[in-house]
């Protein structure tokens, strides 16, 4: 399933990062980070290009030899990046979309916790569990 799930704040700094395997960690960080370029471009492109590209799900941002990077942005300028193994061809676009949906819901729940200060690192146990389930694909 996914090898990296990251929630990125309004200011493009990570609020939460889950990485599948430890040794790849930094590399995945780089992927997620560079993905922001594409996200920004896509978001700003909305205004220019006609047609309805307003979906929160931004689709495949780019693919490297071994990974695929998908993006999603909320109306509140929060970005989600999910990185999957390029080898994993079984994954449908729709499944990815659903993963993002779930991630988004979990994130909103975190924000709705009156004790969470928006913009801070996400430390919620609930969220952790949620992401765990998400990447486990159930």
């Amino acid at each position: 399933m996914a090898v990296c799930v990251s929630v990125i704040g309004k200011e493009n700094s990570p609020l939460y990062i889950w990485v599948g395997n430890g040794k790849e960690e930094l590399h995945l960080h780089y992927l997620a980070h560079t993905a922001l370029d594409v996200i920004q471009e896509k978001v700003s492109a909305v205004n220019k290009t006609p047609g309805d590209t307003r979906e929160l799900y931004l689709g495949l941002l780019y693919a490297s030899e071994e990974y695929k990077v998908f993006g999603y942005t909320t109306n509140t300028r929060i970005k989600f990046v999910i990185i999957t193994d390029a080898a994993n061809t079984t994954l449908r676009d729709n499944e990815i979309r659903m993963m993002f949906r779930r991630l988004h819901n979990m994130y909103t729940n975190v924000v709705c916790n009156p004790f969470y200060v928006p913009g801070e690192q996400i430390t919620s146990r609930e969220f952790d569990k949620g992401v765990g389930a998400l990447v486990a694909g159930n």
Partner: protein
Amino acid sequence: MSRQSMRSNDPKKVSGELFTLTYGSLVAQLLKDYENVDDVNRQLERMGYNIGMRLIEDFLARANPGRCYDLRDTADKIQQAFKLYLGVSPSIGSWSPGGDEFSVVLETNPLAEFVELPDHCLSLRYSNILAGVIPPISHLRILAHLPRERWKSLLTGLRKDIECSSIVYSHLEVEKGMFNE
């Protein structure tokens, strides 16, 4: 453009959330104002009481509930009220042999839906406001209190049920109890 999808999500639920969120910010504010958590608990209960006072009128107006003769009726009405106002129906149970004590158990606590209590105020009884609400709506001198440990378990998000237990009902005033026209 998926404006419609917005509408799609249940307005009942939404305004429930609105209430929940507002309550959340209120609690947060209280925590900021009082350094002592127990004060917050007290304040919450007080607010609950005030709300109860207003709510009872509203309740009488809306669901014109019949007169009730004993504590069991009272319990039913409480159940009814929760259903109406919080959209959740608690289960009434664990009656004391004396029949003067029972528990209102919320399977899901809309108030605490998103709450994860920070470690520094675990002693906070987040939903204490409910404890405050119940006495006035049941015109009985009843002492509704929420056992601490239950709260912990609830608020650390392990269990989403509130248990408003051991409503000790001091003396029989049922005839001039709640909801008498």
